[in-house]
Each structure stands twice: as structure tokens, then as C-alpha cells.
């Protein structure tokens, strides 16, 4: 993968720097952020996405020596602070309603994920979406799904042994239970190829809007900071608890629009896997973490609600475009295909 295109002054300055060989004497990098909503800020989100990516698979045109360069970490912190503030501000009322309320935390988190308000992308895909809308949905999702599970894996060494064992048990399933072809990232790549899309890592980063990048960046933000470990696990819980039933709908919509079983298989797999994972994540991991360290409850709930609110914004964005018979990102033109 190559470095994405710059989308403003911050990404231009950062990308110019990291396209050069690492220079330990290069000195600080001064950037000025635009005002406005950090979640919808293309320049901020693409810069953050690229800076995080240095810790994952990185870029073939970037010197690996930049990963821990202090001037890049300083810029990253400058971008993360308003992003995290915006997320906390956005979900403040929902977090306040759940934290410290009576009842088992896992039950409260299930109630939160079941009742969180937002438009249903899954129902639209199941019943109404066109083939092109299904493709568009798949391509947006590829930005995160091709690194599915990786951001939450950063949390493993930061946990006490009993919670760590539970998280590893869940992640082992995400990584295919030891079978490379069953790694969820690989299943997603297969789905993209079968749907006529580009399955190479990061292929659609240049095309998607800030909100799609923000979905991925929030998980990296939580995963890469020890102080946000509880938010990472709350995020994981919300992902898992909003997956089984929607994935059944996605799979049905994918088949309804004439795509093949391998496209739907990723979603079929998540119906069953995430019916297990939601119990492991909310009961075995989040609730147990907070039992051991009650001070982490607020961040578990923050991570869960941040996930839900970003997903709701993403869904609203796609559905609004589709209602107007437009695309946020037009899918690649296809040769006419006759469903098998």
C-alpha cells in the first residue's frame, strides 16, 4: 500500500515529511488544525489514519524508521486530543445514563446496544438496497474490516491474566482459530473479490469520507493508548453486540441482490461467531474488568457508545445519499453480471 493522498495542510505537511528518509535531526513538525467537527474533518482523519497505519502494515513508500519519531507522535497527539474530546462530548448523555445505573453492567450494555437510536443500514441492505449500494457498503467497510480485530489486540498485554485469557480466546476466533483461510480479515478480502471490488489493504482509503476513516481511527485511538484500554474493550463489546442480527440481514441482502455465497459468507460467519463473542465481550471481559477495577466503568461505556454513535453517523450518511439516489463513493463500474 502507498501513502494516501493528502486532503489538506496537515496531511500535506505530515506526508511530505514521511516520504523522505527518516532524519532524526529533522526537528518538530508544526501543523495548525482547522476548526470544526474533528469527526468529519477529512484532513485530520486521513492524517490520523496514516499515522496509525505506521504501527500496522505501513506503506511501501514510507521509511519504517518513522514509526516512533517524536515529531510524528506530537502531531498525532495534537489530532487525537480534539477527536477524543469530540467523541466524549457527543456521547456524554448516553454515558451518563448508563454509568452507575442499577443492575449488572453486562445487562446495561446489552440494553444500550439494543436500544441505541440510529437508522438501520442492515434493514435497508436486507430489503431495499441495489447491487451498487451493497458494493458501496462493502467498500466503505473494507477500511476497517481488512484490519478487523487488530486494534483490539493491542490491549492484550495491558490486562491482568484472567481478562487477558478471555480476550485472547475471543481474538483467536477472529484470527480463524489457527486456520489462515478463516481469519476474518481474509474472509472479508474474499468477499470483496467476489463482489468485484479491490481487496488490497487500504485500496479505498483515498475514496472514503472522514466518517469512514473515523470508524477505523477510533478503534486505533483506543487500542494504542493504555489509558484507553477500557474504552477499547467497551468498543469491542458494542461491535460484537450489534453484529449477529445485522449480519444476518446483510447476508440476506447480499444474496437478494444476486451476489454469490462467498460474498455473504463473511456475514454468515459473524451471525454465529458474534452470538458467542457478544457474551464473551460484555460478560466475560467488560463486566469482569469493571468488577476488578470499578474506576474503569465510565471508559467501558464511553468506548461502547463512541462505537455506536460513529456507526449511526456512518449509516445516516450512506442512507441519506442512497435516499437521493446518489452514492457517497460511487462503486467501480461493473460489466453486466447475471446472478448464478
Amino acid at each position, binding site marked *: 500500500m502507498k501513502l494516501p493522498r493528502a486532503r489538506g495542510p496537515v496531511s500535506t505537511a505530515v506526508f511530505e515529511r514521511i516520504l523522505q528518509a527518516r532524519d532524526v535531526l529533522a526537528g518538530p513538525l508544526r501543523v495548525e488544525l482547522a476548526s470544526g467537527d474533528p469527526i468529519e474533518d477529512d484532513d485530520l482523519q486521513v492524517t490520523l489514519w496514516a499515522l496509525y497505519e505506521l504501527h500496522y502494515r505501513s506503506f511501501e513508500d514510507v521509511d519504517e524508521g518513522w514509526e516512533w519519531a517524536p515529531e510524528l507522535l506530537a502531531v498525532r497527539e495534537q489530532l487525537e486530543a480534539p477527536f477524543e474530546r469530540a467523541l466524549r462530548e457527543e456521547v456524554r448523555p448516553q454515558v451518563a445514563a448508563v454509568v452507575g445505573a442499577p443492575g449488572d453492567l453486562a445487562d446495561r450494555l446489552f440494553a444500550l446496544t439494543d436500544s441505541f437510536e440510529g437508522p438501520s443500514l442492515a434493514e435497508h441492505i436486507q430489503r431495499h438496497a441495489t447491487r451498487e449500494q451493497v458494493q458501496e457498503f462493502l467498500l466503505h467497510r473494507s477500511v476497517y474490516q481488512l484490519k478487523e480485530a487488530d486494534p483490539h489486540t493491542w490491549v492484550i498485554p495491558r490486562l491482568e491474566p484472567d481478562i487477558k485469557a478471555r480476550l485472547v480466546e475471543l481474538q483467536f476466533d477472529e484470527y480463524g482459530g489457527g486456520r489462515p483461510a478463516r481469519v476474518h480479515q481474509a474472509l472479508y478480502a474474499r468477499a470483496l473479490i467476489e463482489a468485484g471490488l479491490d481487496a488490497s489493504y487500504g485500496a479505498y482509503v483515498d475514496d472514503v469520507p472522514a466518517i469512514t476513516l473515523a470508524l477505523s481511527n477510533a478503534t486505533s485511538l483506543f487500542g494504542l493508548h493504555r489509558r484507553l484500554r477500557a474504552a477499547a474493550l467497551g468498543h469491542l463489546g458494542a461491535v460484537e453486540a450489534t453484529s*449477529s*442480527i445485522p449480519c444476518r440481514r446483510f447476508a440476506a441482502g447480499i444474496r437478494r441482490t444476486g451476489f454469490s455465497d462467498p460474498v455473504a459468507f463473511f456475514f454468515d460467519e459473524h451471525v*454465529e461467531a458474534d*452470538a458467542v463473542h457478544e457474551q464473551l465481550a460484555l*460478560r466475560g471481559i467488560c463486566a469482569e474488568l469493571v468488577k476488578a477495577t470499578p474506576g474503569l466503568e465510565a471508559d467501558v461505556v464511553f468506548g461502547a457508545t463512541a462505537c455506536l454513535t460513529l456507526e449511526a453517523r456512518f449509516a445516516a450518511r450512506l442512507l441519506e445519499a442512497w435516499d437521493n439516489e446518489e452514492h457517497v463513493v460511487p462503486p467501480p463500474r461493473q460489466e453486466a453480471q447475471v446472478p448464478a
Partner: protein
Amino acid sequence: MTAAAGGRRGDSDVEVTLCPGGPMLLRGASHVVGEDGARHEVQRSVVAVCRCGSSARAPWCDGTHKLLA
């Protein structure tokens, strides 16, 4: 529903966890015999067995219990 679980190294190694209002988690099982008598192989290290009787993928949980409340 009724389900019988078979252990990988003997039944004593199978751990059963009942989730409040949700499925039964099985660790260490090799297969589950469903209501229809069919044997369903366990494909992951933990599986969730349906307890509400409404799963479309019985004997496995598919989250449908959440729609019944």
C-alpha cells in the same frame, strides 16, 4: 431445547456457562446433538448453544433471543 454435548477428552473437560437471558456457552466440547438427533460438530473454541428455541441456526445461538424480549 435439549442438547447433549460430547467432550473432546471426556465430558469432565467440558465447561458449560449459562448466560442470563442468553445462550449456553460450551468450552471443550467436540459436538452437540440437536433436538433432531443430528450431530453438529463444534468448529470454534467456544460455542453458544441456543436456549430460547428460536434460533434459525439451531443448535447454535444466532442472537434471536434479543428480539423476543
